[in-house]
Every structure is written in C-alpha cells, then in structure tokens.
C-alpha cells in the first residue's frame, strides 16, 4: 500500500479541502514537487482567490482522476463527508480507496465510540489510517493508546487499519508493524510549514 513515485507511476497530491483550508498544500507545493510529487493546489504566489477562507475549486482538481498513476486527495473535514467526491469527473464506483485518517488526540475521535460515529458520518470508507499523535509532545504511550483504540474501532466498523503512522524517529523504535499487527508508516513532517 506504500506509494512510491516513479516515472511510469507518478503520484499526484490534490488539495481538496473546501471548508477550512488553513493547513494546506499551498505553501509547501514547491517543496513537494522537488521531491518528485505532482501537486494540484493553488501555489502561494499564483493564488488569486482574495479569499475570506475558502479554497477554490479548479478544473484540474475535478479532472485529476484522468491523470496517470496514483492520485491522493486531501479532503479535510466537512459535513458532506465523502460526498465531496461527487465533484470529481469519471469517478466510477470503486475507483477510489477512501481512508479515514483519525487521531485520538482530537476530541471527536478520542474514543472508540467517537471514532465509529465520526467515520460512519463520513460515509463508506475502505480503511482507517491511525494517525494518532500529540504534535511534538507525542510519546510511545500515546502511540500505543492510539493503536489500541483505533484497532478496536476498526473491528466494530469492519474496515481494516491500513497503517499506523508515526514520526520517523519513533517509528524506528516500533519497527515495521505495531503490536496489533498494523503496518507502521514512518513520517517525514512537512506540515509545520503548511500553515497558509
């Protein structure tokens, strides 16, 4: 499930947060493109929205599924949940893998019942990514707690945990899988610079 960008199978990231895009790909677009990724987002200098807050849809976002390789959409939150994908052109049933990213340090997803409710509201999904962390205060206790709570929610929901994501240094201590058997994805963080 780990994606790697190649010439033949590129990866395209799409900034598809339409509600409250204060953490966005906009400011780090150049950095990501230098890493070999393709990014569909308003660039810091090309952004002409004069916007109050809302990001603006662009047609290259709607037509992203026509691109070669793997396309990753970041959809943020929103009361419409998975319905946001209705906007996409040629979005045939089953073309998308929809993963709910949950963090037990967010109040709405801090408990098993919370996660179950949240994910159900989002709509039909294919897997959960356990992204439990407490910013730079993250420690192994929080990671372990996240693994237990998210795995339990995944059982109730009947959808697999796709991965437990952990910042690189901590991930090295845990190894390739966590104690519940979920794959561990080590993370390099860019989000610190992504505040618009």
């Amino acid at each position, binding site marked *: 499930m780990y994606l790697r960008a190649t010439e033949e199978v590129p990866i395209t990231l799409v900034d598809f947060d339409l509600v409250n895009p204060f953490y966005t790909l906009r400011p780090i677009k150049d950095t990501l493109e230098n890493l070999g990724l393709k990014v569909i987002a308003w660039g*810091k*200098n090309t*952004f*002409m*929205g*004069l*916007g109050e807050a809302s990001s603006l849809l662009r047609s290259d976002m709607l037509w992203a599924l026509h691109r070669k390789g793997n396309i990753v959409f970041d959809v943020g939150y929103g009361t419409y949940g998975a319905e946001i994908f209705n906007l996409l052109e040629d979005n045939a049933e089953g073309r998308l893998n929809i993963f709910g990213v949950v963090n037990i340090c967010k109040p709405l997803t801090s408990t098993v019942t919370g996660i179950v409710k949240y994910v159900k509201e989002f709509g039909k999904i294919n897997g959960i990514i356990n992204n439990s962390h407490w910013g730079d205060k993250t420690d192994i206790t929080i990671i372990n707690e996240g693994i237990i709570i998210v795995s339990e929610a995944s059982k109730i929901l009947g959808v697999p945990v796709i991965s437990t994501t952990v910042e690189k240094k901590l991930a090295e201590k845990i190894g390739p899988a966590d104690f519940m058997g979920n794959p561990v994805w080590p993370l390099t963080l860019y989000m610190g610079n992504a505040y618009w």
Partner: protein
Amino acid sequence: MSNKKPVEGEKRAFLTGNETVAWAALAGGADIMYGYPITPQNQVMHTWSRIIPPYNRKFLQTEDEISAGFANCAGALAGKKSFTATAGPGNALMQEPQSMAEAMRIPAVFIIQQRGGPSSGTVIYSQQELTLTTYGGNGEGWRIVYSVCNHQEIYDYTIKAFNTAWTYRFPTYVMGDGYQAELREALTIYDPEERGIKMVEPQPMVGMPGKPGVDRPPVHLVNIYSLEEELYDVCIKYQMEFDRISGEITESEGKNTENPDVLVIGHGVVFRSIHEAVKEMMKDGLNVGYFRPVTVRPMDVKALRNAVKNAKKVLVAESSLGQLERQIKAYCYGLTTPISGYFLPGMGIVATDIEREVKALLKK
C-alpha cells in the same frame, strides 16, 4: 439653480455648533451629506437639509450609520466633497466604513459630536470618543482629526477639513462634543475664497470621463489582499506617507511652555477652561502654562515633548478616564516629567476645577 455664494463677505453670526458645521460645509463647497439621526449631531442634518436648496447641494438620510459612512465614502470616490456627522454608538457603527476610508485613501469628511459613553451613555457630552475617533476600526489610525474648542474653530476647521482630506487623501475629522454642538455662540462666517483660502478641487477615483477599455483602462479598486506580504507593503507605504505629511498637518498651541511649574494639557472644549484658568493663575503670579493639541491625530509630537520636557509637572484634564493621558504618555515615552490626570468622564470641566487641581499640584 443659483451660483450665488452662500456666504458673502464676513458676517457676524450667532449659531449653535451644529448649525456652524452646516454653514461651514456649505461655504466650503461640500456637495453632499449622508446622515443618520443620533443626538447630539441631529441639527447638522436639520440645518444642512434646510439651507441647501438654492445651492444645488444634496442630502440623503440613510438607514443607519453604517450606510451613512459607506455612502460618504462612495460620494468621495465619485469625486464629490461629501461628509457625514455622527456621535457615540453611531460613531461605533461607523467605524467599519471609516476603516474602508483609511484602506482606500478616501477623502471623506466626518464630523463627530462626542456624547457620553460607554454604550448609549448620555446624549449630552463627553470626550470619550477620542480613542474611537483617532484609532477606531480594524486599522492603524490613518486619520486626521481636528479637536475644536469654539464655534469659530468649528467653522474654520470644517472648511479646512475638506481641503486637508482632498489634499492628502486620508479621512478627515472635525471632533466636537455635545456641549459645542448645542451651544449658541458668536462667530464670524465668511467665504473662504474671499479670505484667500484656496479650496481644493475634488477628483473622482472612479467614473472618470471616457469609455473604460477604449479610452482608458477600467479602474478596479480593492481593499482586500491575498497575501500577508501584499498587505504589509500597503501598510508600510501608507504609514510612511502619513508620517511624511504629519509635519504639514499637525497643529497645536501653547502658553508659558518654557519652564512652567505645572503644564496643563487638554483638548477640545475642556481647553476653554484650561485657557481661562491658566490666564487667571498667571495673573496671580503663578508659573503655569498649557499645551493644547488641535490635531489629536496626528499629534504635534515635537511641540508636545518640548513642552512636557520643560515643565516640572504635567496635568492632563479631560472629560474621559485617561483617553488623552494615555496618548500623551505614549508620545512622551522616555521623558521624566511626572504626568497626572484630572478625569471627569462624561462631565464638563470648569476653570475653577483646573485651578484647584493645579494649586494642589503646586503644593505637593
């Protein structure tokens, strides 16, 4: 319509402050007033709407002060000398368009007749709108504010406000108060041109002659920016311009500011009492002086600091709880002269009050 001048020659007049504003605006060539009723400025609108018909000037009573303020901005954008008058909660509501006037360098004129606050306060009097008028709104206070103390000044500075606004393109204010608004007092009214005051011609910022896209490019005026950097550049540019012109705009007056034992500072109508008290005390041989800012924004900082530096003690007197004193202290940062305040929020201050306070300071 007659091209006759509203005021010919010099005329003695016995008017209220509000009537004086209206006559000054007429003589100063104001084209249009937008207003909304609030005491104690109502009579500005009453008088203006009554006296304008022979002179082809206009008046619109809007649905609220927000509208009056925005329409005032619009009139100026369209190249007309426009003004409004308000007070208290109306001034608070009008901060939104005042802030647009700062952001877009709109030469709109605002008359403020302060009433008591906070909230509805009283309809009578105060000096509690100093902070709001000089630094209100979500901005940096790029406003030019004349604080007047008598009817002659109301007349002179209302005329001057139009020239200042249209010369420098910052919103310009004449700030009085409820006492001055309703007070009836003598003054001389005149035609400014006959006195040799050259009235600045207004220029439109939109709707210039010619077909946009054919004879000239279209004008697209905005006050919102996408990036922090764009806004930063605008702010720095406007601040530099405001600082640059401040030297040409600031006005103040002082008496015995060389080495007084007590220097009294006050603005607006309170200065009348300060003036009277200092005159009396000087007659009695006391070494006291005064400093009075006429422009409360921008402040005549050089003259103020000089006067404060030379004084042994400073007394700031105002009909508010330290709104002027806070500004004075900020402007005088680094000076060691002790500054104290005599504050009567929402109350008038008379000369005997000042004398008593000054004498107490002298004894300490």
